[in-house]
């Protein structure tokens, strides 16, 4: 790709005395940050328009000194001499220009930052001990780093509404709001649902929803992420856990085919929140609320926590359950056996499921497709996160309705169901009851599990590693944030053990090895490893 890209003109900019080069069009704030000079900022957000309202990013700037015939005056070092401006300038709105100079930590710049910090705090309620943002609050961070440490404010603070219920999932504290307008701009420019705005003037300016409207958009929680302070908080998360206790795991959302990049915040095997993680190729900085909230089932009472073999002492042992499953499946007529896998499984799991089918010589296998109406933004038209993988690995055969029909008619007498509910696939519970063998692996009890001869409890997406391929053909990584509950095991291990139990050893001992074998057998994955997939994933060129 880089061969074909048109070269971007570079400009020379002096950052704190050192000359550097940046592509034309670079924001000054970005140029400074790239040079290792952190510029504190509140209102600036690279994905939103630039109002320049917080004034935290003020720096000293200069332009090249010019001769009367508009030529730059060169200094002893051959570089342009800089005429420093009389006033500081906001670095978030300025673009780099040839011969420009910037000072990011001069006494004036430090004065400016101190001044802004003091102004931001004079009417702030200073209720950090009870504020959910504590620990990830820009106001706290910058006041430690750039503030004065004391206030000269002796007057009465402005009173504003607190605990305002502005939406299904969000609470607003107007006294904490620093009026950076990020949330307003997000709703206008990204969510296209212009429900937020400011009321009143001056220091009495108050963030609010338009009369008769609510902040109920399915992207509303992104405003909580970008609010630099504790003004907007998530009803789901607030007061549940101090953020500094949270372990962060970079992984992906599995609620649809987009595969939004996310961070799981967990502590001691409990997921507390999910936040989007920036990936320009996938979800920018955003994710839908419905997906972000789609993790509570991980801790549901319906989780399957121990293996079961029907008619035997419960709970069963894993060795017994796997042996029991193998007994049930081996020596059958493959034409009377079927396997239903899930396009919610990882590539590694799907690969092993395919192996299992081969070991049993089963040809009746498929995944359940989940076409849906997306929202035109981050919710895709595919309700499965890994249809791409299921197709690539040959699991998506289109045979599902035929399989269902033959289970109903009694032609198929043994069924393996991996991570789906057979009832969703068009098979009645009556038919499931009549099966001679039903091996079920999954995370939640469903309409299939009570009829299973063997139940194998496995891991949810936050409890395991693996890869998936999104609707755009991008391969992305899941990472493990928490341990599976009870006796539940990682799916790939369960599948490997099953393959082993029905067909002898296949010698894979780690998920990396599974990937390696899969990659060697799959042209589109040739040369890849899990670690090469990286945190941001890789675009594959998939067979049409």
């Amino acid at each position, binding site marked *: 790709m880089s061969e074909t890209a048109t070269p971007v003109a570079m400009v020379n900019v002096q950052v704190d005395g050192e000359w550097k080069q940046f592509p034309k069009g670079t924001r000054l704030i970005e140029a400074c940050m790239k040079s290792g000079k952190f510029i504190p900022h509140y209102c600036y957000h690279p994905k939103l328009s630039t109002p320049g309202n917080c004034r935290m990013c003020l720096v000293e700037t200069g332009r090249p000194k010019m001769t009367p015939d508009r030529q730059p005056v060169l200094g002893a070092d051959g570089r342009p001499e800089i005429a420093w401006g009389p006033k500081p300038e906001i670095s978030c709105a300025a673009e780099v220009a040839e011969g420009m100079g910037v000072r990011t930590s001069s006494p004036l710049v430090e004065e400016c930052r101190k001044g802004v910090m003091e102004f931001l705090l004079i009417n702030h309620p200073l209720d950090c001990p009870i504020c959910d943002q504590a620990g990830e609050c820009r106001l706290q961070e910058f006041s430690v780093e750039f503030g004065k440490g004391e206030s000269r404010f002796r007057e009465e603070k402005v009173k504003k509404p607190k605990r305002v219920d502005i939406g299904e999932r969000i609470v607003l504290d107007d006294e904490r709001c620093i009026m950076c307008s990020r949330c307003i701009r997000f709703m206008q420019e990204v969510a296209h649902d212009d429900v937020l705005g400011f009321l009143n003037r*001056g*220091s009495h300016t108050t963030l609010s929803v338009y009369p008769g409207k609510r902040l109920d958009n399915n992207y509303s929680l992104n405003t909580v992420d970008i609010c630099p302070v504790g003004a907007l908080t998530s009803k789901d998360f607030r007061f549940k856990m101090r953020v500094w206790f949270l372990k962060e795991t970079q992984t992906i959302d599995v609620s649809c085919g987009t595969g939004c990049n996310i961070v799981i915040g967990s502590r001691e095997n409990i997921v507390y929140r999910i936040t989007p993680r920036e990936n320009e190729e996938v979800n920018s900085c955003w994710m839908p609320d419905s997906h972000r909230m789609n993790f509570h089932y991980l801790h549901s009472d319906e989780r399957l926590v121990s293996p079961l073999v029907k008619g035997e002492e419960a709970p069963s042992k894993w060795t017994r359950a796997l042996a029991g499953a193998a007994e049930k499946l081996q020596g059958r007529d493959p034409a009377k056996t079927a396997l239903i896998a899930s396009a919610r499984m990882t590539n590694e799991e799907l690969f092993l499921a395919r192996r299992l089918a081969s070991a049993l010589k089963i040809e009746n296998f498929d995944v359940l497709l989940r076409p849906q109406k997306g929202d035109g933004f981050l919710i895709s038209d595919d309700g499965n996160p890994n249809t791409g993988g299921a197709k690539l690995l040959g699991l998506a055969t289109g045979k599902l309705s035929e399989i269902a029909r033959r289970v109903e008619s009694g032609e198929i007498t043994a069924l393996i169901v991996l991570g789906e509910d057979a009832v969703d696939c068009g098979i009645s519970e009556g038919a499931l009851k009549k099966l001679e063998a039903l091996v079920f692996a999954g995370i939640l009890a469903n309409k299939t599990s009570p009829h299973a001869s063997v139940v194998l409890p496995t891991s949810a997406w936050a409890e395991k590693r693996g890869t998936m391929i999104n609707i755009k053909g991008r391969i992305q990584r899941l990472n493990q944030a928490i341990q599976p509950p009870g006796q539940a095991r990682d799916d790939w291990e369960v599948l490997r053990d099953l393959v082993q139990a029905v067909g002898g050893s296949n010698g894979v001992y780690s998920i990396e090895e599974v990937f390696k074998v899969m990659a060697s057998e799959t042209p589109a994955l040739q040369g890849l490893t899990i670690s090469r997939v990286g945190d941001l994933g890789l675009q594959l060129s998939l067979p049409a």
Partner: protein
Amino acid sequence: MVSLLPTPHPKERRIIFGNISKPGYSPDIETYLAHGGYESLKKALGMKPNEIIDMVKAANLRGRGGAGFPAGAKWSFIKYDDGKPHYIVVNADESEPGTFKDRYILHQDPHQLIEGLAIAAFATNVHLSYIYIRCEFPKAAKIVWEAIKEAKAKGFLGKNILGTGFDLDIYVHQGAGAYICGEETSLLESLEGKRPYPRIKPPYFPAVLGLYMKPTIVNNVETICHVKHILAMGPEEYAKMGTPGDGGTRTMCVSGDVQRPGFYEIPCGGVTLGELINDVCGGLKPGRTLKAVIPGGSSAKVLRAGETFKMKVKGPDGQMVEKEVPLLDLVMDASTLQAAGTMVGSGGVMIMDDTRDMVWALNNLNQFYAHESCGQCTPCREGSLWMSKVTTRIIDEGARPDDAKNLKNIADNIAGRTVCAFGEACSWPTQSFLAKFPDEFEKRVK
């Protein structure tokens, strides 16, 4: 309403108010035409657009809205043939305390504005123009609408004006009811139907990214009115009335402790401050002495009676010499007042005598600015209210020893660090009152 002297003071030269003060003069078009109305427009339509801009440049017309930017230079930022729509927006949001001339013009002589505007539009390839009238001036809005209708009926506006092929429509837009709407970029936001938050400059200079992100000129009512007279008199004649770099006449709105507050149209630099107070305005009230003058609207820095200013002035031999100029000898033009550390601004001259309490006066201004800060940017939003709370507390409870120091520092932390010039407007009073009248603050310390 304050009005004009029935006959002009000898120091006055009435151009803008030339007709207004004539007995029986009324704002309708027949009266206007009877007084030579729309002749300048006819003349302009026969000229080349850039000739008109050159005339305005040669006339040394400076903006009368506050910043005093040369009007001809502002117009020449617009590229006549860049293929984009251009707009001229007349700033009739007049709300700077101490300034009250624009409303008077709108009420008394609206066609003067429309004629000037049509000339300006012709010069800059504008076919759609707006007059943004302060919300609290509903009557002015009605009068101007009426005048537009009349002008259209007579073929001075609309399609194919006077058969020349030039089209221009003018709309009146009633303001959103805040002082900040007068700041030009905020005004444009408001005109676009948005919350009037000033835009950052760069990149949103009106001449480049103005109304609907198109090249736009924003001019004050009085500025636009002058254009008609520049065409009528010729630029040399017009410029000659003023001083170099500040041509023509300027309407001074004098308020406060003088015998005759009111409007005075005076050639730029045609009077000294002393002449304005003692001669034109009839002097101070009996038994009073001068204490302070704010020469250019509430945002201009205050001057103290008895002050002198070191500045370069022309000596008798024509050479520039440095001289101590006493307050009352300051010439009321743009460059002299700038050299004295303040500005002619919007022409609102506020006179305060020895009965005035300067802390009270500052608090009054601070309360205004705290009330009017739009709240968009941090230093002004928080700082203006803070300053006002401190001065109010000083009046109610007396000052703390560090109040003056803190006040100055708050103001210093605002000026030069905000989105718009309101930041300066709200901090200059505090900075200048503290610098010029430290004794009045010290006196308050408990």
